[in-house]
């Protein structure tokens, strides 16, 4: 047994109802470790040969939910969900915090692979060394709050019945989908707690396509044994110290940026990126803090940082709305991006999106896109079934989210995500609306603009293997391979101590016994993951295929000069960027058309990936 691992992944075939154990070998684990890396490897091994034909929303696709060896040992326990993405047709490693990953590990599993499709709604229950498929008909249609309530009641009663003498059973951990995932909305999230989302990638739709409402875990075992137990308390002390003294914690979390990223950085989506600057003090963190936060520090298991806060609307039309923070991404996307600049309104829209199980970044990007089409008269009240998505109207935006989640009216088109909706609407309305779609390879972009040249890099998203995912971009001089670390060890990027040199690699040594260095990771292991992800993104299909020449680029809007603020007039120069792209390709080991070269792939031992790319090189 490799230290730090249970050595076992539960494999569930929902078509046949068969449950088995999958044991990754040591070489595979050492190369791909866990989370995003291991998911990429397994997806490639199993689906790579037929990649372009695999329908992400068909039974052939796999849904993976993996921990990593450091999950639960380092601050914050996250789960990494993956599969073939119904948005990008590639692979996205999508993580969220919560207790599920820890429960899974304590139940004796490092992850779950789901294949096939159940005839009726089901959930998967993982308990100590045991996996079962259970009926979820009663849960189907439930929003997040109803789902958690019902699962807690049912599973606690079941555990008590099975082991009555144990004492009180705690609640299980779970990942689940809301109504939007059930309806296969392409940017539906896999949710945890009420408001934590594996947002990027659209894996809520993949779960929905499998009739899988939730994966639930309750384990009573210890965390797996580690290689150097004496090292652990030392590392843990350092982690706590760094976490407890971090400047962000206890204060604002990331939620203060809803104001500052606009006013200071001019890099926040405002009305579907028509602007990136605003000076709306009404969305300032002090309003959330004094009006909405009922808990100033809210954490998931093992977190030493507490960047989350618990926000509630106590009065008025949105009374009873509950979400976290909202964090920066949702303040930006469910706030400024929709022209909403009051804290109750932002908490409300975030709550609706959470409850429906939508991804707050991705679906609110689509909502902003739709609202702009309404602004321009391209879409009308009739398309929206009577809703008027006017900038700043939180109630109407909440209704729009429902329209999408239930696929009613234009909601059915918008449910395909911004890119596919833009294609369809361009055709039906006879107007090119792709220029209002701010997305990269089907993945709606994170709330971090590039036009000032100071916030996020000009050529980050455009060449990312995870499209618009703001957590996975090259940050020169670091390549995108750097971003695979957190998602592969499956740890929290916010909770990992900064300023402690090599802390991740010291943890890796103490937990697994493996000597690894950041340099090796970025040049070899991380790069291997990136190259496979790049390959599948280019293989794409079955409904959309990306052309690097055209698609390794920023959306049109980001070449429009910023219309206001201190950086007014700034925008990247496209010709200059296309020159830079050549260099970036070369640095990544890609040819002039953006395809990984045989030389690079052979160097990394990815011979089968090289073979699969041959047809593209012609």
């Amino acid at each position, binding site marked *: 047994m490799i230290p730090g691992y249970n050595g076992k992944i539960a494999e569930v075939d929902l078509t046949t109802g068969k449950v088995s154990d999958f044991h990754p070998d040591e070489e595979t684990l050492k190369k791909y470790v866990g989370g995003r890396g291991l998911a990429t490897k397994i997806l490639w091994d199993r689906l790579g040969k037929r990649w372009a034909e695999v329908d992400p929303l068909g039974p052939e696709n796999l849904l993976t939910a993996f921990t990593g060896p450091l999950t639960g040992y380092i601050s914050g326990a996250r789960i990494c969900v993956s599969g073939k993405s119904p948005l990008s047709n590639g692979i996205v490693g999508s993580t969220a915090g919560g207790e599920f990953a820890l429960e899974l590990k304590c139940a004796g599993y490092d992850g779950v692979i789901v294949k096939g499709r159940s005839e009726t709604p089901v959930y998967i229950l993982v308990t100590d060394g045991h996996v079962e498929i259970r009926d979820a008909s009663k849960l189907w249609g439930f929003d997040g709050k109803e789902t958690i309530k019902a699962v807690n009641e049912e599973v606690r009663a079941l555990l008590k019945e099975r082991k009555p*003498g144990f004492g*009180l059973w705690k609640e299980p951990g779970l990942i689940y989908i809301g109504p939007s995932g059930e309806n296969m909305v392409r940017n539906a999230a896999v949710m945890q707690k*009420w408001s934590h989302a594996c947002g990027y990638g659209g894996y809520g739709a993949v779960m929905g396509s499998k009739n899988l409402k939730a994966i639930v875990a309750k384990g*009573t075992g210890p965390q797996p044994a580690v290689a150097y137990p004496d090292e652990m308390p030392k590392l*843990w002390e350092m982690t706590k110290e760094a976490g407890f003294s971090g400047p962000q914690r206890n204060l604002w979390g990331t939620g203060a940026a809803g104001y500052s990223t606009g006013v200071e950085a001019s890099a926040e989506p405002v009305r579907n990126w028509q602007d990136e600057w605003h000076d709306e003090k009404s969305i300032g963190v002090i309003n959330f803090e004094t009006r909405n936060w009922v808990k100033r520090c809210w954490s998931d*298991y093992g977190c030493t940082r507490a960047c989350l806060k618990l926000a509630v609307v106590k009065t008025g039309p949105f009374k009873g709305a509950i979400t976290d923070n909202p964090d920066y991404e949702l303040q930006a996307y469910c706030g400024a991006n929709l022209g909403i600049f009051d804290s109750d309104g932002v908490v409300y829209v975030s709550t609706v999106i959470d409850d429906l199980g939508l991804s707050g970044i991705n679906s609110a990007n689509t909502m902003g896109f739709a609202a702009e089409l309404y602004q321009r008269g391209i879409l009308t009240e009739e398309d929206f079934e009577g809703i008027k998505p006017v900038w700043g109207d939180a109630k109407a935006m909440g209704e729009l989210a429902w329209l999408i989640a239930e696929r009613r009216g234009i909601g059915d088109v918008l449910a395909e995500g911004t890119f596919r909706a833009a294609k369809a609407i361009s055709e039906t309305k006879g107007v090119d609306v792709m220029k209002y779609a701010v997305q990269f390879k089907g993945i709606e972009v994170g709330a971090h603009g590039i036009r000032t040249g100071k916030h996020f890099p000009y050529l980050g998203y455009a060449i990312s293997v995870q499209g618009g995912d703001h957590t996975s971009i090259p940050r020169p001089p670091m390549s995108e391979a750097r971003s695979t670390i957190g998602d592969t060890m499956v740890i929290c990027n916010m909770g990992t101590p900064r300023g402690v040199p090599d802390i991740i690699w010291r943890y890796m040594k103490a937990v697994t016994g493996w000597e690894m260095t950041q340099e090796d990771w970025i040049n070899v292991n991380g790069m291997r993951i990136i190259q496979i992800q790049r390959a599948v993104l280019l293989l794409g299909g079955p409904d959309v295929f990306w052309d690097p020449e055209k698609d390794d680029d920023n959306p049109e809007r980001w070449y429009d000069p910023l219309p206001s603020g201190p950086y007014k007039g700034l925008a990247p120069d496209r010709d200059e960027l296309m020159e830079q792209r050549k260099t970036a390709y070369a640095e990544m080991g890609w040819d002039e058309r953006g395809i990984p070269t045989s030389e690079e792939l052979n160097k990394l031992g990815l011979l089968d990936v090289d073979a699969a790319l041959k047809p593209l090189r012609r």
Partner: protein
Amino acid sequence: MSRPVRVMKPWVVRDYMKCSGCRLCEIACSMKHEGRMWPEASRVRVFMLVPGAEVPHLCTQCSDYPCVSSCPEGALSVNDETGAIIVEDEKCISCGACIRACPGEVPHLHPEGDRVVICDLCDGDPECAKVCVEAGYRALYKGTRTSSKNYDLYAIKPEEITKNLVVNLYGEKGEELYK
């Protein structure tokens, strides 16, 4: 001559509204008692029956110790200095009598199944409280207790506390979320 000072016993003060749900208390407890991270072996367990309403659940050292008198094997005793319950593992037959006797169902079986686990106050310096104070939450912190019946009230099921907390946090909506 000064009057004799009444020695107060240590107690873990709990301020539920301040619990962040980080479970660092569970980690600290299990590292102390089990030498590793083992949440379900922790003597303090944080229940999250409703997200946001996290309830650290641990022994309150009742004035009449119903668990001690319920044990058919005499496996439980009270430490004179701290007032904490001490479990003699060898004597415990994991029959669950103490769990049933506790008004808050605080004790639970060790996941290995052969013994019950109850907070021993770490000989007067509870690790859970230390880490919570260190983290700056003070949802748990070391205080003192007297023989007042008020302390017995904390031998209460997490379900009961949750019912109150959800209203405190979420108002009327809280009543919908947990009945």
